[in-house]
């Protein structure tokens, strides 16, 4: 075959395979569009004011809402942040500042191991460690379980963000006479702050949708509750119960609750992006 023909064949093959790759990419994105579309199509019509302000109705009856679930999600996620953020960020800063030794290696390895832990395993751990000894299901136990999931995520992203800060900043601060702790806290971490915040927001978005660890910790609540020492309902638990149930009313509410949850997650994810954009825009 002539060289020109061969080159032509190769070019055609390149174009075809480029098309195949583009097609695969489109196929990968397709389910997302379907899911989002279905959420809106099946859920939006059920969302009205009473949906947000009412509590669940008895099984099979109509007219219920997810007020307790929305508040519950907020409280449990808030609890998890309260516990997980300080420890996670602290661990991350440690890894970036002092983490080049053996202890740092161990902590980093542990964080990676825990990042891969299935959330259901964390759930059963939380049941034996908290629920059973104390003798009750509680929002606190749920918050702790979610915090355990958040910790390694935040530690690693914080470490990476702090490491990205140029050495010159550190050395300039030290040269100007700042003690090490002050350099670390007010110069390095401050510079990395928007990245750290992004990492935290991403972690929050992840755990806001978690269900498995809450099954054996927060249990779920028919009533509106803000008590940390009582079981609590969350959007994710509500969706699980309603989706696997037989009542049409429940299915309708499940779609709407899923839309609300997805909206929440989206808002947090967009917020995370916006924080980073601000940083680059300002500099």
């Amino acid at each position: 075959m002539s060289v020109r023909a061969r080159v032509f064949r190769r070019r055609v093959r390149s174009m075809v395979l480029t098309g195949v790759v583009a097609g695969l990419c489109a196929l990968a994105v397709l389910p997302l569009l379907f899911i989002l579309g279905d959420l809106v199509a099946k859920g939006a019509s059920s969302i009205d004011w009473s949906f947000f302000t009412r509590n669940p109705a008895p099984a099979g009856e109509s007219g219920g809402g997810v007020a307790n679930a929305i508040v519950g999600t907020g409280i449990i996620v808030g609890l998890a942040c309260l516990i997980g953020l300080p420890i996670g960020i602290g661990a991350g800063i440690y890894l970036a500042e002092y983490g080049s030794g053996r202890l740092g290696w161990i902590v980093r390895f542990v964080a990676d191991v825990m990042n891969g832990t299935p959330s259901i395993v964390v759930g059963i751990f939380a049941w034996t460690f908290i629920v059973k000894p104390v003798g009750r299901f509680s929002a606190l136990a749920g918050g702790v379980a979610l915090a355990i999931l958040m910790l390694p995520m935040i530690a690693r992203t914080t470490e990476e963000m702090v490491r990205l800060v140029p050495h010159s900043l550190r050395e300039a601060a030290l040269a100007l006479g700042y003690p090490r702790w002050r350099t670390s806290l007010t110069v390095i971490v401050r510079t990395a702050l928007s990245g750290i915040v992004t990492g935290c927001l991403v972690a929050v978005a992840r755990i806001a949708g978690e269900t498995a660890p809450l099954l054996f910790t927060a249990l779920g609540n028919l009533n509106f509750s803000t008590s940390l020492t009582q079981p609590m309902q969350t959007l994710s638990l509500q969706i699980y119960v309603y989706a696997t149930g037989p009542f049409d009313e429940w299915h309708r509410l499940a779609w709407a609750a899923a839309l609300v949850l997805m909206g929440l997650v989206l808002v947090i994810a967009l917020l995370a992006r916006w924080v980073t954009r601000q940083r680059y825009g300002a500099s």
Partner: protein
Amino acid sequence: MRKTLWLSTLIGLTLAAPAAAQVRLTGAGATFPNIIYQKWILTYNARFDNVEINYQSIGSGGGIRQFSDKTVDFGGTDAPMTDSAIAAIGGNVLHLPTVLGAVVPTYNLPGVAGSVRFTPALLADIFLGKVTRWNDPRVAAANPGLTLPATDVVVVHRSDGSGTTYVWVDYLSKVSEEWQRRVGRGTSVNWPVGLGGRGNEGVAATVRQTPGAIGYVELGYALITKMGVGQVQNRAGTFVTPSLESVTAAARGAMATMGPGTDFRVSITDPAGPQAYPIASFTWLLVRKEYPDPVKARELARFIWWSVTEGQVHAPDLGYAPLPGEMQPWIETRLKTVSAGGRAVWAPRPAP
């Protein structure tokens, strides 16, 4: 050590929260009565401001387990605790019946007019996996008037520990020697065939979404989802439709064996009685004889008393049968034995 730490955290948080006048009770367990329990609980919570009750349907197995582990104040179960399980918690349990229900074979056969009839042997064969198509001669033999499609039989059972399962397999064990030998009784068994659904809710949902499926659920679930409900042949040979009357007839027969001193752990499957439905059951609330907190114990006792008296009026609409009236004084006697700190907590609600 660990427990003290957590307890102190919890106590601290409880104290930090604004003091509510509310008594909060948490229960978990059977999905069988969940429809009526939610109705009772939400009605009761709305009516009496000082109490807030929460119940989560996680299965009778869950109710027994969490009750035994003391993570909930009361449990719900349709499978009575075994003697060894009761001994394991030092006998600190009362079984109080709340309502009666029927476990019905529910199926998804669009286009089949009329109710499918099941003989005991047929039910056992289906759930043993020996009958695989709906137009099998064994099914046709029990249903001479029906034309049945050639669809595959899809068995749906419980994937969680279930009292409804217990009632179902208790019945199958009584009527089928092969079932008794191969599978046996329990809240969770080694099912020969079938898909698993979580809770009565999950089984009803799976049956509803799977053409050709057959599962077992409490009557209320089948009524709400409008799936087919089968007739079951009882010991007297009659094909009985599950209904309030036939369930109450089943309970009547059992009443003869119970007296005021009963502990209520009675199985009423496969009863004698011409109109009795063969797969009916009490459902119980598990209550401790001795509670640490007298206020909570009293409110719990009041709720249970309300359920077995005023609450019974809701039962027929939701597919459950009310308790026979003769049981009320027996239950009252039991409630009066619930104590905290050595003293009985029972006190009727003060007049408003």
